[in-house]
Structures are given as C-alpha cells and as structure tokens.
C-alpha cells in the first residue's frame, strides 16, 4: 500500500496554490491534513500527478471574528476547534463536535476544510455545517465566490467546488444568547465514523428551528422547519423526515437515524 509517484509542493501563498491547481487540469490535488487523502493515495484510489500542500498558506490557517460571524480558514484543525484556540460562534456546539471526531492524533492534523471538501456523508463537519447553514468561501482563477452549505454540498463525496478551485474558509453566523442545540451520533466504537447523525438547532432570535439527519447515502438532509422535531419531539414527524432523508428502506438504518434525531432533540434540553 504505497502511493504511485506524484510531485509535491508546499507553497506559501494562496495565489501560487490556486494557479498550480488550476493548471493541473484535475490532476493536481490539494492536501490539507492528509487524513483522508493520505489513505486514498496509499490505496491508490487517488493517483494525482501532483499534490499541493496547503498548510503553509497563512490565510488558510487563520480565524477571524466579527460581530456577526466567525470565519475559520479551511486548514484550521479539528484540534484547534476542540481546544477553543479559535473563536466559537456556536455556544459550544463546534468544540463538542470536534472533540468527538476520530482520535486525537487525527484531530491534530485533520482540517475542517479538508473534511468538508472530502464530503464523506458520515463526517461530522458535513452534517454540522449543514445544520448551521454555514457559508463556504471559495477561491479560483476568477477570484472568490461564496456559497451556502445547501448549495455547496451536492452528494456523497461531491461538492460544487470547481476542479480549479480551492476552499479558503467557512463562515459561521453567531448564535444568539438563548440559542440551544443538540448533536448526537452513533458510532459502534470510539473513533469510528458515525452510522447515524442527528442535529437540532433552535435559535428563536434568528427565527431558526432546524434539524439535520446525517450519515445518509447522500448529502445531509436538512429540515428547515423542524418544529415538532427539534422542540417537541413527535415520533411520527421524525420518522417521516428519516424516510424523506432516504433512510427508510432498511429497517436498521431507519431505526439508527430515528434514534439519532430523537437523542439530539433530547440533548437540546441540556445545553
């Protein structure tokens, strides 16, 4: 399990990275923490001509805060979020999610941007940032553009990122003071990817009552009007949502996703 040969570069500035990737015509891959890409290279599932390591580009590892939002560079690691070394817009939701990703060794390297671009349906940021409807900030040869999560994520391992683009940052709007959240995932053992994810967010001041069903076969299923699920849990409504999320066919998957949503909703009362 050794990768096929590839060129490696670790530029310091964004423009150089962007142009290398753009010129690579799909054969040059960005690398952040390497926690997903590394395995794909070793298994030879990915055989790019070149790898551009993004970790020396300062902007991608920075975090900024305004009155309304926190912007996290794509290369901010799970560990920095877990340790609250970057500002948190979510009243503890993101640090909690970060702390339960994989093992510490992986959290030390894995990044929020890498996780999002990889778009594994079972990954935590994919579901969490969908629940938050965060904004992806994207850079490419024609400058920058922004997209909400609903448009950014297209399906399993599929995003709207162009072959010549990189993800620069994600912007998360701040929760108001009495926002509450619940997040629950089922893993068969510590550090394993989730079999089912449920998330709920109630932020009355921002008129948000939202829920998400994650670890599905495609992108996370967001319930924009989650009344009857996030606030008062109604089993019937929840089951309808699980079915709408495409998890209704297999009894086991249906049950797992239902329980994840139910327990996320129950957890909201403890935050």
């Amino acid at each position, binding site marked *: *399990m*050794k*990768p*096929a*040969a590839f060129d490696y570069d670790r530029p310091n500035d964004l423009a150089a990275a962007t142009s290398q990737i753009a010129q690579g015509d799909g054969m040059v891959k960005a690398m952040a923490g390497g926690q997903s890409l590394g*395995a794909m290279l070793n*298994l*030879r599932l990915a055989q790019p001509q070149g790898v551009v390591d993004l970790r020396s580009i300062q902007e991608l590892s920075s975090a900024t805060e305004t009155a309304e939002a926190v912007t996290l560079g794509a290369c901010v690691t799970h560990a920095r979020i877990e340790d609250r070394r970057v500002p948190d817009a979510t009243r503890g939701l993101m640090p909690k999610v970060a702390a339960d990703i994989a093992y510490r060794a992986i959290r030390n390297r894995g990044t929020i941007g890498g996780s999002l671009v990889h778009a594994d349906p079972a990954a935590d940021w994919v579901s969490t940032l969908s629940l938050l409807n965060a904004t992806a900030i994207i850079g490419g040869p024609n400058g920058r553009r922004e997209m909400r999560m609903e448009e950014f994520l297209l399906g399993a391992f599929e995003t709207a990122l162009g072959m010549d683009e990189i993800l620069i940052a994600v912007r998360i709007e701040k929760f108001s003071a009495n926002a509450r959240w619940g997040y629950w995932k*089922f893993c*068969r*053992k*510590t*550090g*394993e*990817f989730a*079999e089912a994810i449920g998330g709920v967010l109630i932020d009355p001041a921002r008129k948000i009552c939202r829920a998400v069903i994650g670890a599905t076969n495609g992108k996370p299923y967001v319930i924009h009007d989650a009344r009857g699920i996030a606030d008062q849990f109604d089993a019937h409504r929840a089951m309808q949502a699980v079915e709408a999320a495409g998890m209704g066919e297999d*009894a*086991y998957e249906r*049950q*797992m996703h239902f*329980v994840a949503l139910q327990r996320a909703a129950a957890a909201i009362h403890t935050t």
Partner: protein
Amino acid sequence: MKSSSTQGVGARLARKEDDRYLRGQGEFVGDIHRPGMLEVAFARSPVAHARIVSIEKPAGAEDRVFTMEDLRGVQPIRAISGLPGFKPSDLWPLAKDKVRHVGEPVAMCVAATRAEAEDLAAQVFVDYEELPAVVDMVQARTAPSALVHEHWGDNVFLETLYDDDLSAAKASAPIQIRRHIRTARQSMAPMEGRGVLCEWNTRLGQLEMYSSAQMPHINRAGLSECLGLDQGAIRVIAPDVGGGFGYKGILLSEEICLGWLARNLHKPVRWLEDRREQLVASTNCREHDYDITVYAERDGKLIGIDCDATVDSGAYSLYPFSACLEAAQVGSILPGPYKMDHYRCHTWSACTNKPPILPYRGVARTGVCFALELMLDAVAREANIEPFEVRLRNLVQPHEMPFDNITKKHFDSGDYPESVRQAISAINLPAWREKQKAGLPDGRRIGIGLSVYCEQGAHGTSVYAGWGIPMVPGHEQCFARLSPDGVFEVRIGAQSHGQSLETTLAQVANEILGVDPQNVRVIHGDTGLTPYSTGTWGSRCMVMSGGAVATASKEIAVRVKKIAGKIMEVAEQDLVLEHGAVRVAGTDRSMTLAEVAHIWYRKPQLLPADVDPAGLEVTAGYKTLRDSGTFSYACHALVIALDTALGHSEILDYVIVEDGGTLVNPMVVDGQIYGGTAQGIGTALYEEMPYDSEGQPLASTLADYMLPGPTEVPEPRIVHMSTPSPYTEFGQKGIGEGGAIAPPAAIINAINDALAPLGAELTTSPASPRRVLAAIEAARLRQAA
C-alpha cells in the same frame, strides 16, 4: 535441588524482554536491512474463482516479474491429513491454471522500493475466465455452484462422524432445544503483519530467511520440501515477532517465492505484508455453522447432544495444520467438561473460494464454546433455572478427576464447579438480578452472562499422530550451557512473540539452578542456533519448553556439582545449589556458578584427571508424563447494559475465575488473559469479514474491519485458582489461548439474558447492532403473529 528464591516458579517477575521493547530496540523483519536489498510486491487475484487464460508481464520488466512458470522445480504446498477420506489440495506458491480466492498471489514483482514493485504489480495483465464462486460453506457441500478443486467431485476436504443413537432421547427427553448457530469469518490482526527477508549465503550454500514466524523449524521443513533443498541448506530466523495468534503458524507461499528469488537473483529480497493483504489476501479463521440439538431433563441435566457442524476451511489446506484440523476438532471437543450419556456429531470441512483458514488463538474452542454455552443458557431458560445451575448440574466434579469425557478427552485435574461458584460470587449475581428488574435509569436493560471453557494445552504425540498432519510433536529439547562467565544460556526451538518466554524460562532455570534470571539468556526462534521444535502453538511452551529447560537445568546442576565436588574435594551429594552458587550443605563454603564455569573452561589445569569430561553444555529432551494435554479452564461472568433502541451493548463488569495449574509467573498469565479477552470481545461484538456472492471480501481496510480498541475493552477482574497438573514438571498448564475462548459465549449469553423478556435470542456472532435489532424485530413479529 529446589531453591528458596523469590524469582523462580510462581514469582511475579517483570518481563525481561520489555527493556528492549519499551526502548524501541526490538528488531522485527521490517527493521532489518541488507545492502542492495530489493523489495517485493505481489500481483494478486482480484477475482474469487477463475481459470487463468494468460499472464502478461509488463513490457521491459520481464526480468523483474515472475510467475509460477519461472519458478522451475518448485513444488506446491501440500498439507495432508491422515484422517480417512481427506482430500489434499495443491497450493502453488504462485497461482497456476486457476485462482481460488481473491488475493491469491499470481505474480511476484521486484524493484528497488516497495512503491515501484507495486507499480509493476499494477501492470501485470492477467486474462481470467471467471467461474461461479463458492461462497457459503453449507451450500458448498449441499448445493455447490461450482467445484473449487474439480477432480474432487465435491467441495469437502473431510467429513467426520462421531456416531451415537439419540432416538431414545428424541422420544422422551422433556427438554429438546434445536438452534442454528453461526460464527462470523474473522481476520486475525496481530500488530505486526507477516514479513519475509531472504538472502542466499554463497559461502555456506544456505538460504537465510528472516520471517515473522511462530514455528521456524516447521517453516524450514516445509521450505525444504517445496524448494528441493536439504534442511541444512536453510536457516530460518524468527526475530522479534509482533504477535502470532496462529496467523504466523504457517508455511507461506511468499516464503517459498522469496526463497527461490534470493537464490536465483543472488540478492537479498524482502516482502512486508501490508494491512490490506493481511485483511483480504492471506488467511482467515473462525467461520463455523452449527445445527445443534440438546436433550435435557426437566432440571437441566444433560442427556445428549446431536450436532451437524460445518467449518468454512477456504480454498486450500495450509501447512502444517491442514484444512481439517478445525472441523474435526469440533467433533472431538464440543462436549468439553460436561457430562452426558449420548453424543453425536457430524462435521464437514467445507472448501470455498475464500482464503484458507488457520487455527486462531483458541482454534475450534471459541466456536464450540459459543455453540454449547448458548445452548446451555437456552436449556436454563426452558428449565426456568439460573444458567449457572445448569453448569453446576452438568460439569465434571473434582472427585471424578482425572476424567475421560464422552469423546475420551482426558482431563488431568481441576475443580470446574468451583470456578463457576467463585465467578457468580465475584460478579455478585443476586445484586445484579435485583437491579435488572428495574433496568438502568437511562432505560438500558441489564444482562448477566457466563460461560465455561476448557483449553487443552501441550497436547502431544498421541493426540497429533491421530490427525496425521505434517507436524507431530514429540519430545521437546533444550540446549543449555553454563557459559565461562557464569551466564546460563538456554536455547529452545519454540519462538516467543508475546508469551514472555525470555522471562518465564529464566524463572524455570532459577527454580532449578538458583541462577539469577537476569543472568539467563534465552535464545529462541532460530533454526541455526536452537534444537528442533514444532514451535509455538497449542498453549504448549510453558509446559514443553519449560519442562525441557527444567530437565536441561537439572542435568547442568548434576554436572556443576560433579565439577565443584572435585574442586572443593567434597562428595557431590553434600552440595546444594542456591542463589547462583554451589554450597557445601550445612557450611558456608561455596563457589559461585561463575567460578565453577571459569575453572572448567579457562583453568582446566586446576581440575583433577578423573573429572567427568561431559562439560557444562547439554541438550536434554522432555515429555509430559502423559501426552494427552493439560486442561486449564475458566468461568467468565459479566454484566452488560443493552440499549435496545440501538442494539448496542456496553460491558459494565467482567470477572474471570481461571485455573491454569501452577502459574510460573502470575503477571504474565494475567497479560495472556487480558490480551485473549480483548480478542474474544472482538469476536463477540465487532470482528467480521463478510464476503459478497461473488466471493469479494467486503472489509478491505480497518475502517470496515472493526477491532476493539482500549475504550471497548474493560479491565477484567481476574481470580486465580490453582490445581496443578499431575503430568507436568511443576504442575503448570497451557493458558495462552483461554482468554479468547470464553468471551463470545459469555457476552452473547448476557445479551440474550437482557433480551429474554422481549422473547428475543441471538445465535450469531458478532452481536452487531444490526443483528441485535433484527432479533428484537423477529421476536416482535413472532409475538404479533
């Protein structure tokens, strides 16, 4: 001769080998380099069953890629069994004509680095004419989709029958329970995979092979047969080995290929198995299917067992254990320590298009323990008594020891019912039964489970002669030498890869000679340096190598006394050995062992002419008083919390009451139990190597093949009992495998205990959430109907 030392048999001595391991100074095959060494990667079959139409080597690389056609003169691996009706298979080290499982090596590619060797392997083009795959072991024999080895006419390596007439039981037994029980195919996962490094020594005309192996002398024997070299022309060295568990008790196709390559290229070559090869290409274990009926009296007393058992042996018979050891063993060990008047068991070693199986820690015992102990719990539920009562009612009693059970297994010693009583008391059954009524505050159900097993260790000639496989153990040898500086060197042909033999054998030497264990050098795992041995398997080393070291040490003691007697001018019988010295009894006149050795080797002029010339080096052999094996045993009892919404269980408490006879080092025994139990928990809850209908493995990385980690393995509370074996040197018994035997039965019995009020019952391992939920759902539908 017995010393009064605190470092001998029974001492909790810290492991000598840990000094180098903890400092990162161990040396595994992957750490060894040779100048000019090349790396090897194998092109392996992507399909389960196909005829090879043609193999095309990458253009320009013809001299770096080798197929079976190139390996002229190399013979296939043929692991036979003497059991009547056994059908042997030819395993060519590189596939010839046909491939029979995914991952079977087809071409060997060699390059300066492993990555480049993999580049070559990716370019080997093989034209496969695909055949239907034989995947399910029961269908393989009842309704085969194809024949794995055409000339056999069926897909059965071997069928055995232990016959009996159960018609009376069938007509009248008040309790009759029949179940279909299955255990999943597993992949063994030692931390270090396999690895082979070969170099041809032109001076000695000898192949020098480093291999991560458990039985180097057996590997040498097999290599000699396949490569056509005499055994002296091969030296196999197993350096530090990072876990074996049976996975490394095998003659590998890769060893043969690399041996041939090193000799023909005249260059050192190395192959290191990667995790993907380990998971999908090499060997698996543990896949059993039982159609079992138990007959019992109203009070749970067993009348008889009737069982059809199939084991999925995979595509080939492996050297030396053969494809039939596991299934045939099922037939002979299913009744275990339980008494019954009737027993019938029909077994099949089924041949399928999956990797061949190896005897994994516990071998067939984990499966039979699972089948029988699940059945005993079912009997308890039917009889409406506590599961432990069923055990107490049927286990062999201490006054019946030694005991020959219904299949003529000879139990040497032990008090089995006592282990159950102590386990029930240690787990505090009444308190948990009380808590169980209400369940846990978070809504989870409580389940209490137990299981009893026995482990036959160090079984010898008479047992293995019956199997007739390429390897039958005889006397175990030890070469011992008191070196000129007083260091005591013992050489054994077994291999220590986690068993702590460098420590425990030093303790044995200390027990006999009084020599400080730090001054004992244990040399093992090298055919060039050690006496012949079948190696490390079957929980045999502490009994057999331990016995051999004791025998050799005694002989050295005699010789030391003879020499010292001459020097000190006293009679030998007036001398005692203790604390590394030989002393005139009742006086303070003494000489250290180092002083005796120094005179013997370096100052022979100080010895009188009539000294015995035999010297301070001996090779001594050992066999137990009876070679039917030692029987260690334990009762595992535990409590789980079962989340019935998720099918997920958490272990709340775990107790093990075990009897390994005399424990040479209780701390080492605890270590063996912890490790084995972790593996047993893997079997019970996590590990599963599924195959699709085309014979494709569905768990090709550790993301899909789930192993328990530190957070899933509780620290069991261990209680030791100690009933010495009457047949071994110190009364010790083999204990290496037991930890891995009992957990699946105990854990799934606990889950079934929690599920009982729902009318649900699980009969397949592992108890994945999917299976638990399916069992609950099936019960719901049954009750609704």
